[in-house]
């Protein structure tokens, strides 16, 4: 879809997902790494736990379909080369400290002078301006300051973050939309613009209605362990079963009536639905007004039923009956999902230098205008496309390139 557009990706782990999404939508994305490689390559886990820039699984996961060139941005020659690349670029993605690119003369005002149509996207922890702009922002601080962390965890312990960084992946997705809105605008007006993404604002969206409860009713939602959060009734969301957990919420009325009736019938077929459960009119059950002890009684019966079965048994039965329920999966179960297999989601990619083939998640988008689940090339090695781009696109000679290499610029 975006095959006519060129993206220069200067970002580290904070912005890399933005370029990945644009690549998956068909854009020509070139990662510009400092000589020696991007700091992303130092992020684990590593293939075989061997810490090496060509073995980072973080790098391999988020740079598919991108090209790689190396360039020392702070050197005078490096700046000149970068400016020549910007002449033919549509989008530049960066995630340096706010103000860094300006300080080396490559900020948006400078790039705009070279190419008025260019869209520059900055992805940072808190945004380019404001009181927190210079704050350090690893994932946990964003989780905290976005309000999301406060809402997760057990009631008797500290709030918890998800044990996997989410803030910058989501900021990357926001950066992709923002840059494309600006690109669309450019096609209408001829002018590019600057896009300033805040990871804190992105993560704040995960809090859904929690700030609204405060705004409109003065109520504070809190973390609630295995239960659905909120300030009304407590309903269980996470249930133990034989070999793990399933996640299922009891909703009343229109949303849950049919599902709860199906589940009751299923339990009854195994002699596990008590009279109380069978007497409930699920269609008129209002979860906002039903007494908490009724909820507990319902949950006790359902819990006893789930604990007799495995995740796979429960999931299969739920799918058959149209019950909205999911097992709590890990990558192991995901990799053997029959649904994902039928969709051809997973992609095998050869890695000859590692002597292995790696299964990757496929493209998120399936479009009638693009080949199915095409992920493009595997993530590149450091500077893999130096020759193609510096010689092929910029027309540098072999001796110029080797001179730049000697000086440590590429």
């Amino acid at each position, binding site marked *: 879809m*975006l095959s006519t557009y060129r993206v220069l990706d200067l970002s580290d782990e904070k912005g890399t997902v933005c370029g990945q999404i644009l690549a998956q*939508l068909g854009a020509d994305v070139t990662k510009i790494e400092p000589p020696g490689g991007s700091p992303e390559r130092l992020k*684990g*886990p590593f293939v075989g736990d061997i810490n090496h820039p060509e073995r980072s*699984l973080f790098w*391999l996961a988020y740079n598919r379909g991108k090209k790689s060139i190396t360039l020392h941005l702070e050197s005078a020659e490096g700046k000149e080369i970068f400016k020549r690349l910007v002449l033919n670029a549509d989008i530049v993605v960066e995630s340096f400290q706010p103000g860094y690119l300006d300080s080396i003369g490559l900020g948006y005002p400078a790039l705009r002078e070279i190419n008025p149509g260019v869209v520059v996207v900055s992805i940072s922890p808190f*945004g380019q301006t404001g009181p927190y702009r210079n704050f350090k*922002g*690893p994932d*946990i*601080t964003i989780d*905290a*300051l976005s309000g*999301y962390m*406060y809402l*997760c*965890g057990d009631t008797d312990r*500290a709030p*918890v973050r*998800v*044990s*996997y960084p989410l803030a910058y992946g989501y900021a990357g997705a*926001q950066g992709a939309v*923002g840059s494309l*809105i*600006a*690109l669309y605008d450019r096609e209408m*007006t001829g002018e590019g*613009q600057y896009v*300033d*993404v*805040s*990871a804190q604002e992105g993560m704040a969206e*995960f*809090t*859904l*209605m*929690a*700030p*609204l409860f405060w705004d*409109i009713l003065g109520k504070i939602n809190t*973390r609630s*362990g*295995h*239960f659905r959060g909120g300030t009304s009734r407590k309903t269980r969301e*996470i249930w133990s079963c034989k070999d793990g*957990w399933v996640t299922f919420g009891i909703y009343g009325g229109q949303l849950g009536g049919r*599902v709860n009736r199906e589940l009751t019938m299923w339990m009854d077929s195994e002699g596990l639905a008590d009279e109380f459960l069978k007497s409930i009119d699920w269609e008129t059950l209002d979860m906002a007004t039903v007494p908490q002890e009724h909820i507990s009684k319902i949950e006790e019966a359902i819990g006893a039923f789930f604990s007799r079965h495995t995740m796979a048994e429960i999931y299969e039965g739920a799918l058959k009956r149209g019950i909205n329920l999911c*097992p*709590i999966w*890990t*990558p*192991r179960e995901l990799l053997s999902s029959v*649904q994902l297999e039928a*969709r051809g989601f997973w992609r095998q990619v050869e890695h000859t230098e590692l002597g292995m083939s790696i299964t*990757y998640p496929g493209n*998120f*988008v399936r*479009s009638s*205008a693009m080949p199915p689940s095409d992920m493009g090339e595997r993530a590149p090695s450091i500077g893999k496309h130096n020759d193609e781009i510096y010689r092929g696109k910029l027309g540098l000679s072999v001796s110029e390139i080797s001179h730049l290499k000697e000086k440590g610029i590429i």
Partner: protein
Amino acid sequence: MFESVFKGINIAEFTIFGLGPVTGKFFSHYGATVVRVESSLRPDPTRMWPPFAKDKPGLNRGTFWAHMNTSKRSVCLNLKHPKSASVTKRLIEWSDIIIENFTPGVAERWGLSYEELKKIKPEIIMIRISNLGHTGPHLTQRGTGSSLQGLAGFTNLTGWSDRDPAFPYGAISDQYPPPLAAASAVAALLYRRRTGEGQYIDLSQLECSIPFLGPHILDYVVNGRISGRMGNRSLCAAPHGAYRCKGDDRWCAIAVFTEEEWGNFCKALGNPPWTMEPRFREFRQRKENEDELDKLVEEWTLQKDAEEVMTQMQAAGVAAGVVENPKDMLSDPQLIHRNHFPKVNHPEIGSYVARNDAFRFSRTQSYIKRAPCLGEDNEIIYKGHLGISEEEYVNLILEGVLE
């Protein structure tokens, strides 16, 4: 000056819950005419989700719905009515993009398959978002993001290593499809501009979410390892956690990654003797003695306000952040600086906080207006935009087509 990026772009939303509506918001905030096609006979259940203004339920009183549908129009159309087809047809002719997120099969029953849409308007762009995609054996699985986040792998990663998983608030897997769907839709508009061709886009909530756990999944694929719940700990930082502060349920997150940051951290605490002990000398030792380390850090934080801990740490070059509760969020100086929660006025709700996007443009302003009441824009859309005559409009009302 308000510059409208998507001026002249028309979008009809056949949507429900969050995924479809939040996708449409990326367009309504930037000048597209985005119409939610609803029915008073079967309103979107989220219209009846709390919180409600003054705690009084009502279809136009829920602020969550109002939050997810800012700057949009609402019309009513009973798609089950035999005479609705001619209205639907004109709506499709008018639209550049159709967004749809019902359970697979539902839109087909209304005559809204891509094949049908294409017959009416060949260059239409259709964006469909469902739980598991529009093909495959489990395509019709119903569900909400709150359980699907379990399937995608997020729930197993939330909580403490010595306990069952904790429920991640809301629905993590609901977050990813809207920006990805909106990015795809803008890409499709650019493609149509270039080629004149429309397209069909099928997004699955599961497939949109999995890539965001990419390295976690590759770690299993390549190394056979499944990393699990770690509470607030990190493999490459210590201290790394949320520490209790002065007051009721007040916490501050602190993260120390490098030796330089550890030095700064100790200095900020006034270099108490315990920080000099060999058991905390380097990262490896701190990691080995993390339980004791956390206790000592908390002894210090307990004496202070969370805000004070954050300010002191950040001034010293150490990552820290108040674990903000919903009240804090609305008074967070950075979110205020970015105008993350603009106030809007609604005829039934009164004043409520809407939400800005996570990006700001140097030239383009976002255009955040209150959400519409159910069917509020029937007249302007049907007569003004679709060109339905007064006589036909009245007949459609009388026959119950616009319910």
